[in-house]
């Protein structure tokens, strides 16, 4: 049923769906944007953490005396008292707040800790060495796998995997904490402005030193944050100790993780390895799947990747094993478990296509009907093939050229939910004509601030500059944390509803004076006018002046069953990669990526495309460069820095073509976009390398050593 809250029809949109610059673009590109790390409070102290050098150990002695005596040290907290069993390198032992960063570091070095070192496991790719650290984690059978395989004309079996990577947020985790009586303000680098304050408050309330603190006493402010990717949802132990140090010292305290700490303990994407068996008929119809997979999320579980991914092969059996390792714990990493699932599915399907002498594009087109949205995938695959010039570039595996440089193409498809989270927006129209949209949401760099502004301005018939977007403060109406691509759907819907309600109030206020009724009035081009009669109108400012002294303040909510259907869940996407492999050095060079993506109604096409470009680039990093490398002998991470934890650079990512599926997809309303485009790159790139070389590099990242080893094994070196 149509509703006044529904999104405006395509021909009536003046902002929605256009390419619009982000609202905070100039603040960021001129260095004016203040992040948590940039927050220097008057009289503020700097805190640093002492962390465990061992992967598994028990604290047997800790002496902070010498550190306490150091001039300039204002507060010390022991976080792991004697007896604590430390389960990973980087585990927090103690924290020091001091007048300067240099003194804090000196003090950390003066804390004396003794450990009883315990046995550890830090690597899991070879399951036979995992000993008693494994446990079953999910088993599922659909249809009749044995019968399915008996019907198959061709069966492929192989090993595939994705190693652990880290989030490597450029702004590390951390915050500034400042007390005023029993009220604490936390300037946190967080994806969850609305919830971490309460969580922190609960912990503080349980501490005798801060027993008077109520969860609502903690205010969280995050105007800008330098990347989270799923790793910044908790107040974290360093957030708690930061607040405690500030209380103890009676001064504001800044505690941001150092880069090695960030990489060691502040976020890891679980590994996923699998032995896969998949069968098809001669014509490529998939009939059976069987997999045994294993994964580590550190000491915690990691969940099982949803395999077979997207394509629901009718007869299938999956078994997953969780391996606990003494490594920094897993955190949600952009599209949790989906990139791994894409590698574990799209790579064996491509290898199966090779056995069938089929172009994998044909195999996928034949089988996407086994997915919930076959027609969408068909359209997206065909569009991607056109943009990649797939037909001209595809060749049989291993026929990538006669010289030492071999070219190849590969593809992958993906899915994600992305339904909007719970959200409240307060929309204020002031008598002076100014407008504020207030939400306790946060902009991770995805463009949330801009999207809210566009929706409010579009609804009120104003230019984008006519709306002030106020977010990043837990004092504003609550909005969900920004994870799982849920933000754009949530804030767009609540802002739309609040804006419609507030506009209704304004129209009611001015209608009598215009000799008409509110239902005959519309807001367009910065004016309130009688529908169909532009001669009877008021400027926005003149209309707002009629409010006298009383501002309009209306709240819109998501979800709201009776107030329009503004969003949906479930998107698809197809990506293709073209690579060049140097068979003498093993180096894989990106030539081109094509990303075709649907996500319902797009609010800002420019920032939506940026999500896809960025996701491809992040995906290229995990496909070719990134790995949290551990040494089983010492239990330590070998590359807890940015020299050897490699991110791709500006020259490493080739050409990228993004195509957003619009028009016919608009009626679904707004659906999230952060996760989906980051899922396919590793699988598509791995498949492109296979196409170039004719041998499979089984695990990502596809580093030169693995390429050379695979070539040698394949008799091609």
């Amino acid at each position, binding site marked *: 049923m149509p509703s006044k809250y529904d999104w405006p029809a395509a021909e009536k949109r003046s902002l929605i769906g256009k390419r619009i*610059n*982000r609202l*905070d*673009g*100039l603040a*960021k*590109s*001129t*260095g*004016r*944007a*203040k*992040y948590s*790390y*940039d927050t*220097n409070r008057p009289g503020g102290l*700097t805190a640093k953490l002492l962390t465990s050098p061992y992967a598994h150990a028990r604290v047997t002695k800790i002496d902070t005396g010498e550190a306490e005596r150091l001039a300039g040290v204002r507060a010390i907290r022991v976080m792991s008292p004697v007896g604590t069993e430390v389960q990973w390198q980087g585990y927090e032992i103690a924290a020091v707040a001091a007048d*300067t*960063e*240099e003194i804090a570091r000196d003090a950390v070095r003066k804390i004396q800790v003794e450990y009883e070192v315990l046995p550890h496991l830090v690597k899991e790719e070879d399951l036979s060495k995992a000993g008693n650290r494994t446990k079953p984690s999910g088993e599922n059978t659909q249809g009749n796998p044995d019968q399915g395989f008996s019907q198959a004309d061709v069966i492929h079996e192989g090993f595939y995997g994705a190693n652990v990577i880290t989030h*490597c*947020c*450029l*702004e590390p985790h951390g915050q500034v904490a400042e007390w005023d009586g029993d009220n604490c303000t936390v300037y946190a680098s967080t994806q969850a402005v609305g919830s971490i304050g309460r969580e922190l408050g609960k912990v503080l309330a349980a501490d005798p030193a801060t027993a008077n603190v109520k969860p609502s006493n903690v205010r969280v402010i995050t105007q*800008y*944050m*330098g*990347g989270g*990717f799923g790793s910044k949802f908790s107040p974290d132990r360093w957030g708690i100790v930061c607040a405690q140090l500030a209380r103890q010292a009676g001064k504001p305290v800044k505690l*941001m993780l*150092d*880069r090695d700490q960030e990489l060691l303990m502040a976020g890891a994407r679980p590994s996923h390895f699998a032995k896969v068996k998949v069968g098809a008929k001669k014509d490529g119809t998939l009939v059976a799947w069987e997999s045994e997979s294993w994964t580590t999320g550190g000491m915690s579980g990691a969940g099982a990747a949803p395999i077979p991914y997207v394509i629901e092969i009718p007869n299938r059996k999956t078994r997953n094993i969780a391996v606990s390792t003494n490594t920094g714990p897993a955190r949600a990493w952009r599209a949790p478990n989906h990139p791994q699932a894409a590698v574990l599915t799209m790579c064996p399907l491509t290898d199966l296509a090779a056995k069938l002498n089929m172009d994998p594009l044909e195999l996928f087109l034949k089988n996407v009907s086994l997915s919930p949205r076959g027609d969408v995938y068909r359209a997206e695959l065909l569009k991607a093939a056109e943009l990649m010039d797939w037909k001209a570039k595809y060749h049989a595996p291993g026929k990538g050229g006669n010289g030492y440089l071999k070219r190849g193409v590969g593809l992958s498809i993906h899915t994600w939910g992305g339904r909007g989270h719970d959200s409240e927006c307060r929309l204020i129209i002031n008598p002076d004509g100014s407008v504020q949209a207030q939400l306790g949401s946060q902009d*991770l*760099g*995805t*463009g949330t601030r801009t999207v809210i502004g566009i929706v409010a301005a579009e609804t009120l018939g104003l230019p984008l500059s006519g709306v002030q977007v106020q977010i990043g403060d837990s004092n504003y109406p609550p909005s969900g944390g920004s994870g799982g691509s849920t933000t754009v759907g949530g804030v767009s819907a609540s802002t739309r509803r609040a804006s419609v309600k507030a506009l209704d109030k304004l129209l009611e206020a001015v209608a009598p004076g215009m000799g008409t009724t509110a239902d005959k009035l519309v807001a367009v081009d910065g004016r309130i006018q009688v529908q169909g009669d532009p001669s009877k109108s008021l400027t926005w400012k003149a209309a707002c002046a009629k409010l006298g002294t009383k501002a309009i303040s209306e709240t819109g909510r998501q979800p709201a069953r009776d107030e329009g259907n503004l969003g949906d869940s479930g998107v698809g996407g197809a990506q293709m990669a073209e690579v060049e492999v140097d068979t003498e050095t093993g180096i894989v060079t990106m030539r081109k990526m094509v990303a075709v993506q649907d996500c319902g109604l797009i609010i800002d096409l*420019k*920032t939506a*495309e*940026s999500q896809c*470009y*960025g*996701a*491809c*680039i*992040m995906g290229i990093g995990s496909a070719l*460069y990134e790995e949290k490398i551990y040494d089983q002998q010492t239990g330590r991470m070998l590359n807890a*820095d*940015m*020299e*050897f934890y*490699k*991110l*791709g*650079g*500006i*020259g*490493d*990512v080739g050409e*990228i073509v993004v195509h957003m599926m619009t028009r016919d997809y608009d009626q679904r309303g707004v659906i999230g976009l952060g996760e989906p485009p980051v899922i396919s790159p590793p699988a598509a790139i791995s498949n492109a390398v296979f196409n170039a070389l004719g041998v499979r590099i089984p695990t990502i990242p596809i580093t030169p050593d693995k390429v050379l080893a695979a070539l040698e094994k394949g008799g091609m070196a």
Partner: protein
Amino acid sequence: MSKIDSEDHGKKHPGKKGFSRRSFLQGIGISGGAVASLPKGLLAEPQAESGARVMGPGPVPVSLRINGKVHNLNIEPRVTLLDALRNHLDLTGAKKVCDRSVCGTCTVIVAGHPVYACGLLAIEAQGKDIQTIEGLLSTHGKAHPVPTAFVENDAQQCGFCTPGFVMAVKAFLDKHPNPTMEQVKQGLGGNLCRCGTYIGVRQAALDAAREMRGGKRA
């Protein structure tokens, strides 16, 4: 990761006496990660050199000329230029990310050259013109063409690498006013971004170059 042409790349350190972790490592031809395996003696104490000036370890007066204005500080000689800017002058545009001269988010321009401010001690930057992102804000009430081009091309997401990237682009364009796309890819290889804004940065560099050339013609 990028093949960096040292001529084109331009991340040089100012002054012939300039000494930094980075220039030291470049000088002896190794990458940062290999320091731990250096034989003893290569990292000999600097005061052993004849005529070396010893400062500290306590706070010493340091004078820095930043964006045309002189700032007098009393800081320990071990404070990096980056920490001096961020912790002592509240100039927080340059960001601290890797803190060991890898990622470029702390890029500032010292004596005309782009420099990783985390790899240079504040005491070494004395007597030189230091330009930070804050100095790029506005000369005639209008933003500089480089940050403007970053906005137009959405060459930023979380924005944490952006000020460093803007300064790197500015310094690059000062030396290469009419670059090709290939030169942009090579010349800006010293700055890393996690959100993946490189496609926008490439175009922003080209657009800003055009805008800046246009400005000169007029």
